[in-house]
């Protein structure tokens, strides 16, 4: 009985904190989507469907599509790059591996704002990189590298790539490379061996990588805001605009509800898929974030 009481006492602080500052706010997001806005930028009384009706603005499907497109492409590219890197890292001598791992982790630990700033300097119209490209004739004189979708995509990949590399590397490190030699002895080509032996054994970590890259990528706001232009806005930018520029909180909460659904849909699908595969969920959830900043 006493142990039950202790148990209850150590559960309550974090439990109550998260109910008040996490679960309740999420609930409010959905609730406020049904509230009218008052003229002073606050929340009006009563209930209204006006906010939801405003969502039929023709610009939204384009923005939602762009958000999904940028999220999926940056995830796919990050993972396609991460697999050979993880493979290479796992096969390296441990001395060299520690150096390369450190080189991958350092930009990742560097302040997020600083990383975006670095890209702004790097792609600067007067900067060394653009002028070299113009000089060797790769791009015409008037091409701007900043403030478009490609800049957003590049910075997103730059930001999320380590999230993809670390879990896949953690799985590749445990892979027994003698299996690849065995496959080759049995007559498989290098690529076939890679595809039929290596890839299936790291598939779970690829699933984790998809999750940890796609979710923040869909919610990206700062990257399109700082290196993108008006034609590369994502849902995140629209949420921020309706909070800080239009001062329309109900509208912001309706957009957030859409983003929340967009984010959790693939997650639920993934969990469903996992259940079918009969994997140990708790075990694999541990992998990504701890691995990330160790």
């Amino acid at each position, binding site marked *: 009985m006493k142990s039950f009481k202790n148990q209850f006492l150590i559960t309550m602080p974090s439990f109550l904190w998260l109910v008040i500052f996490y679960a*309740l706010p999420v609930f409010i997001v959905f609730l406020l989507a049904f509230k009218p806005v008052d003229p002073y930028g606050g*929340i009006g009384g009563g209930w209204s469907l006006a906010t939801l009706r405003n969502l039929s603005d023709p610009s939204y499907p384009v923005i939602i599509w762009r958000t999904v497109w940028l999220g999926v492409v940056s995830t796919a590219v990050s993972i396609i790059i991460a697999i050979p890197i993880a493979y290479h890292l796992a096969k390296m001598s441990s001395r060299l591996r520690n150096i390369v791992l450190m080189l991958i982790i350092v930009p990742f630990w560097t302040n997020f704002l600083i990383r975006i700033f670095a890209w702004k*300097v790097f792609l600067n119209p007067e900067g060394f990189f653009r002028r070299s490209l113009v000089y060797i004739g790769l791009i015409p004189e008037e091409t701007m590298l900043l403030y478009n979708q490609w800049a957003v995509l590049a910075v997103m990949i730059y930001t999320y790539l380590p999230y993809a590399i670390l879990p896949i590397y953690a799985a590749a490190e445990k892979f027994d490379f003698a299996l690849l030699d065995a496959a080759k002895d049995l007559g498989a080509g290098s690529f076939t061996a890679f595809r039929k032996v290596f890839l299936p054994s790291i598939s779970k970590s690829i699933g984790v990588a998809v999750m940890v890259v796609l979710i923040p990528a869909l919610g990206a706001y700062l990257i399109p805001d700082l290196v993108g232009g008006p034609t590369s806005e994502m849902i995140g930018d629209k949420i921020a605009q309706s909070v800080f520029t239009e001062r329309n909180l109900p509208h912001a909460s309706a957009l957030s509800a859409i983003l929340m659904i967009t984010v959790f849909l693939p997650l639920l699908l993934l969990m469903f898929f996992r259940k079918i595969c009969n994997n140990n969920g708790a075990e694999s959830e541990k992998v990504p974030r701890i691995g990330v900043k*160790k």
Partner: protein
Amino acid sequence: MKKCNRSSRFPMIVTIITLIFLYAPLVVVSISSFNNSKYGGAWRGFSFRWYEKLFTDATIWEALVNTLFVALIATFFSTLLGTLAALALYRGKGKLQLFHYALVYSPLVVPDILMGISLLLLFVTTIGIGAKIGLSFELGMTTIIIAHITFCLSYVTMVVLGRLQDFDHSLIEAAQDLGANALQIFFKVTLPIIAPAIIAGALFAFTLSIDDFVITFFVKGAGDTTLPIYIQSAMRRGTPAVINALSVVFLILTFILVFTSQKLLEKKK
């Protein structure tokens, strides 16, 4: 044999190109920080002026102090709450812990912006209710700290729970057999075992707090600046050269931090 060699070169090439991709912008920023030119671009001679400006700029120092203040308080409370949560989740079973588990783990997969907006809406609603009954709150340092505790908590729990799940439970049973009570077991067995994880979790929370821009931006009051907020507002006006110098300072600190933590981990092995 030749074929085998060719196949093993591809991953190496991808790794090298990726490292160039990761470092090219950082190298350009480092070089620019010594450029005498005001707005970057063409080289106008070597100079330390941006470093001088960085260390004498009062707004940057104020932002730094705020950042550290928020990070220290948020780290303390999130480590405390997060560790308790890990202990509860490790021992407990039943419906309550299942719900607790979902509460702790789902913030990890929520994008920053959703956490920011939902906390802002909570604070705005509370301020609205408060105004009606004659209490006044405002957005400010307190709301920033509350938000930081909230998003750091789950990471601490994850790190500490990971450690708890790895350790040998029979140690606790042995202590029980030897007649130790719950408190003795906690302080003499459990705490020493999870102490490194608590420290790792606290460091993690501290880093996350210092790094955060998005959530802070949503819940801060009008005049509050942290370092990321300062950098963002400076960037809206272009690419001011003083941020180049700030970036280099950050990069050097990060290198030292990662290098030391790698060395510490190596020694343990």
